[in-house]
Structures are given as structure tokens and as C-alpha cells.
């Protein structure tokens, strides 16, 4: 990890200080279980925001509310100036076409080859593309994640790390303005996790996309995030750069950094 430079930007210091995503007093509960308890935060254009927290803290639910997979009970979630909680399916799909989502286990379509996985997303979002254009885009996306030779493989033939990279290629093929990473390094060995972290950093440079990275992996948070928010029981416990969080005096946050 010596080659990686740590990001040290603090809240509000990002060069493009223009919120692309805003959560305002968002609540979500499942039965009696209150998962989000009025969280508010924003993500600036071109920024990598880390949402850090233990399992069950509401990290994944927050991004699921953002992309409309789950409906927030209360509050406002603005993406590119539009409140996604008030959009109909068609309007929501317009927003979704600009968002790439990397799921925890890749969520590749089992019955399709890698090529078909990528073509499926692209062709459904842009039906006017020729076969040659689709093939070029697929190859480009796979080259970006370093897996061009896996193009004709089935998901069952891929390792966990490869599945995540193909999942990332599928998210990138639509040239998204926003990328959401759900636990990008979870379940991976140290070397593969480092490769994924490098990939996230290179994507930030190449695509200049705004990213939300959900993780409980401090190494991932340290090297990929511009800013970090820490969630506990559906509320934001702390916010700031990695150094701010590391130096936080709160006992619960300190426990995160204890080895």
C-alpha cells in the first residue's frame, strides 16, 4: 500500500464544492426497526464519500433509498437537483441511467456471459447503438478493470474479485456520473482488496465521477475517500477526513481503529 497516497481533504475543501447528492432528514424503518433516523449529508461533484459503519448501521439502506430500491419514510433525497422520493418510475429511471452501482457480490446475471452482462445493461439504456459500438464499449469497460480476456466466461467461472471487477465494468459501461460501491472489498483477500482499491482510485481520475463508497474496511476508507461519514444506529456519529475520524475522541469511533 506504500504506492497509495492518502486523501486528506476535509469537509468543504473539495475543489468542486457543488452538492450532487443531498440527504435531508431521511428516516426509514422496517416494522419496529428504525434503520435511518433523520440522516442529513451531501456529496459534492467529483467527490468520493465514504459511509463507514458496522453491519446494520443503515449504510446500505441509505444508498438503496438513493437509487429508489427502497422508499424512504420521510425526508428528502436530492440527486442532480431532483428529489428521488417524489419521482415516478420513468423519471427515476432517467436518474438511474446516470448511476453505476457495484453490488457487494457483483450481482452478475448468472444465465449470461460477461459480454452479455455488459451488453444487456448498455443495450437497454441505449437501444440505438450498433453492434460494433456495443462491442467497443464492452471491451473498453473490461480493459478498464483489467479483465478483457474474461469476456466470454460465465459468472460461475469467475473468482470473487473478478466478479466484483466485472460488476464494476457493468457499472462503468453506461459512463455514470455517480458510482455507488457497496462493500467493494468485503470478502476479498488482502491483495485482491488492494487491487480493487487501486481500481476505485483510477476510476475517480479517469471518469471524474462522484462516488459513494459503503464500507467497514478502514484501509479502503483511508485510500479511496475524500470525506467520511460514520453511521451508528441510523444517525451520523462523525464526519470529516480520515485523519479527523481517526483522531476523534468518541469511544465508539475509537473502537473502530483498535486492532
Amino acid at each position, binding site marked *: 500500500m506504500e504506492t497509495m497516497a492518502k486523501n486528506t481533504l476535509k469537509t468543504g475543501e473539495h475543489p468542486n464544492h457543488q452538492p450532487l447528492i443531498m440527504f435531508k432528514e431521511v428516516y426509514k424503518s422496517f416494522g419496529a426497526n428504525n434503520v435511518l433516523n433523520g440522516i442529513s449529508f451531501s456529496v459534492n461533484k467529483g467527490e468520493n464519500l465514504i459511509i463507514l459503519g458496522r453491519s446494520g448501521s443503515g449504510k446500505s439502506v441509505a444508498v438503496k433509498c438513493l437509487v429508489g*430500491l427502497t422508499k424512504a419514510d420521510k425526508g428528502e433525497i436530492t440527486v442532480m437537483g431532483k428529489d428521488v422520493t417524489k419521482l415516478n418510475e420513468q423519471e427515476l429511471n*432517467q436518474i438511474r*441511467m446516470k*448511476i453505476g452501482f457495484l453490488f457487494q457480490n457483483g450481482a452478475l*446475471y*448468472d444465465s449470461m456471459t460477461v459480454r452479455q452482462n455488459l451488453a444487456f*445493461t448498455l443495450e*437497454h439504456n441505449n437501444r440505438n447503438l450498433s453492434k460494433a459500438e456495443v462491442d467497443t464499449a464492452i471491451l473498453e469497460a473490461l480493459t478498464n478493470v483489467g479483465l478483457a480476456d474474461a469476456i466470454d466466461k460465465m459468472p460461475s467461472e469467475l473468482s470473487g474479485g473478478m466478479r466484483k471487477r466485472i460488476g464494476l465494468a457493468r457499472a462503468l459501461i453506461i459512463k455514470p456520473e455517480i458510482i455507488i460501491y457497496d462493500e467493494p472489498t468485503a470478502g476479498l483477500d488482502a491483495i485482491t482488496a488492494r487491487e480493487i482499491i487501486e481500481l476505485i482510485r483510477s476510476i475517480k481520475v479517469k471518469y471524474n465521477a462522484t462516488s459513494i463508497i459503503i464500507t467497514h474496511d478502514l484501509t479502503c476508507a483511508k485510500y479511496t475517500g475524500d470525506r467520511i461519514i460514520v453511521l451508528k444506529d441510523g444517525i451520523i456519529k462523525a464526519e470529516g477526513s480520515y485523519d479527523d475520524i481517526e483522531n476523534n475522541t468518541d469511544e465508539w469511533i475509537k473502537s473502530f481503529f483498535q486492532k
Partner: protein
Amino acid sequence: MNLYLKNVFILVGNITAFSSRFFKEVFKTGFEFREFARQCYSIGYKSLPLVTITGFIMGLVLTIQSRPAMAKFGAESWIPGMVSLSLIREIAPVITALICAGRISSGIGAELGSMKVTEQIDAMEVSAINPYKYLVVTRTVATTLMIPILVIYADLIGILGGYIGVNMHGEVNIVRYFSQVFESLEYVDLLPATIKTFFFGFFIGIIGCYEGFNASSGTESVGKAANSAVVSASLTIFIIDMIAVQLTDLFF
């Protein structure tokens, strides 16, 4: 008992709501023809060996079993007519639908359940692809169209099985056999029996999709989805058959 009944009504309500979405989505533009064709191949063509074997055995066994009773009344010559009538009106549609509920409904339930558990359905939705239209509409339209075709095919194979059965204890010319079959059949025997198979097909598809779509997280739920799909679809087939028989009795 009250809780059981309550759960049954909740299930019926949920399946009705799920089905009503089907009718909204099926008429929207952007039908997924490629996936529909793939499903027709998987549901229709790949079920042919199973339907052939069961259809043939149904015809053969029905003929052999009814022979002694018919022989007592000296009505052996009525066997071709009786077998074909029984097959076309009741046995082939119900047995084929039940076989398909076991093979197709459980397959759809397990496939979609697995997709749900591994977030593949969420991935589709996030990619601005309507998973209901892509997965549910294509599969349900395919079952609705393929089951009647499979039933008609099972009718023919069953009648052929009956011919073999008849010839086990005597010698009946194939032309004579089929002329006896067609003499005993009327238009009203075919029409209601065929209409009800469209309903069988629709419910086999929609119940499989409903159970798969509503699988909770965890691999255990995939098995449960497949199991519930078979049980619910089989029960629904019997209920539809009962209603269809009553209506046929009323109108024909």
C-alpha cells in the same frame, strides 16, 4: 385455523395485486421478444420429452384399465371414443398442467428467488431495466401460450398411447381407431378444455414469478419459493378446473 385462513386470503390478495401489474405491463411498449423466445424454448420445447412420456402413459394406462369394465358390457368398441374424450376433456389438460407446475413453476420460482437473493433483480432495477417486464411478463406470456400447445400435443400422444393399448388385446386398424376417436368428439369437447389450459398456463407462470419475486434473503428461501410455487400452482390448477367444469356444464 383463523390464522391459516387469514394467510390464505393475504396470499390470494398479493397474487391478485401481482397479476394486476402483469396486465398493466404487458400492454406497455418495449416487449422483450428475445427473452420471450428464450422462455418459449425453455418452457415449451424442453418440456416435450416429459409431456410425451406422461401423455403416452396416460393414454395407454387409461385404455388398459377401462378395458375390463367395458368388456363386461360388451362395449369394447367404445374404448377409443371414451379414452379420447376423457383425455381431451379432463385428463390430459390437468395432468399436463400438473407436470408443468412441477417443472416450470418450481423452476421459475427457484430462478427468480435466486436472482432476488443474489441482488440480480435489484441490479436490473438500478440499471433502469424494468425487472417485472423482463422477467415476469415474458415468462407468464410464455407459459400462457406454451401450456395449451403442450396439452394439445399430450392429447395426440395420449390417443396414440390408447391405440397401442387397444392393440394389446386385439387388432384394430389405425384408420378405424382414429375414425372412432373423431366420431365421438365434438366441438364442445375441445373448446372449453382448450380455453381452461390458457388459465392453467397463466397461473403456472404468475405464481412461479410471484414466489420467486417475494423470496426473502437467504438461500433457504430459494427452496421455499420453488416449493410454494409448485404447491400453490397445483392447487390453483384444481380450483380452475373445478370452476371450468361448472361453467362448461352451465353453458355447453
